[in-house]
């Protein structure tokens, strides 16, 4: 049996699939009866989704123009 604290420490690794089988079983057993840690898992999933969909910064036109100019000049003889 693991404690909430131990389960929470490994939640992202659990979601990443980088825990070993015994750790996974221990976490799933804990989640089967701990409502608060289920909330932790749901929030961890939301936070991961939030990071994955966090809007990329669009490249400004002037930066694109300068970097394209650099490319054109590279080793051009």
């Amino acid at each position, binding site marked *: 049996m693991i404690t909430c604290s131990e389960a929470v420490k490994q939640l992202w690794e659990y979601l990443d699939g980088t825990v070993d089988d015994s750790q996974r079983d221990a976490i799933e057993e804990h989640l089967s009866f701990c409502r608060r840690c289920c909330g932790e898992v749901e929030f961890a999933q*939301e*936070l991961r989704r939030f990071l994955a969909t*966090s809007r990329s*910064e669009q490249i400004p036109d002037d930066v694109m123009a300068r*970097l*394209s100019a*650099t490319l054109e000049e*590279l*080793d051009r003889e």
Partner: protein
Amino acid sequence: MRVVLVAPMREPIAEVTTENRNEDFRTLAREQLPRLYSLARRLVGEEGEDAVQDCLLKALQRFHQLESRAAAPAWLTSILVNCCRDRGRARARQPQEVDFDEVEEFSLYRKIADEDPFPYSDSLHLDFLDEFGAEDVREVLARLPDLYRTPLVLVYMEGFATKEVAKMLDAPLGTVLARLHRGRKLFEKQMWDYAETTGLLREGAR
């Protein structure tokens, strides 16, 4: 006549001149510029454009090492990450002191539930995340030491596998996993601190 390479790039082609090779590099790199710039901004903020410039110069010099066109995004990312790391070292920041014992015990989920910043909300935790715009996320990332920010961005924001990131950073997989663990704990803690210190939750209180 311009020769345009198609994958795999090692296919024999007629007359691979230096100019053909450079033109091929330009075509490939130009397609990647928006993605590289966005990543560099996340990793080194204001120095993002300069880091991409460094990356282009280095990548052209090493273009012969690229084995296939499909590998180009990861290959360019790897070079960019190292350019960003060099810029981080050049900035000679004081090492940021982090109390990992405190961070290890921190749970953003519990903190939000305990502090209850949106008393009338049915979806407290989602409302918290909704307060963060792209600029806020960049600000929070900037508060993380480079060592932890880089794997966090590459895995959870750019979608690279941890094994690929270990290769990019030339670090053992176990080291990358440990840094990821600390990085996302720190990110959660910094999200809360940022929201508190910038008044994000007051502005968002409803």
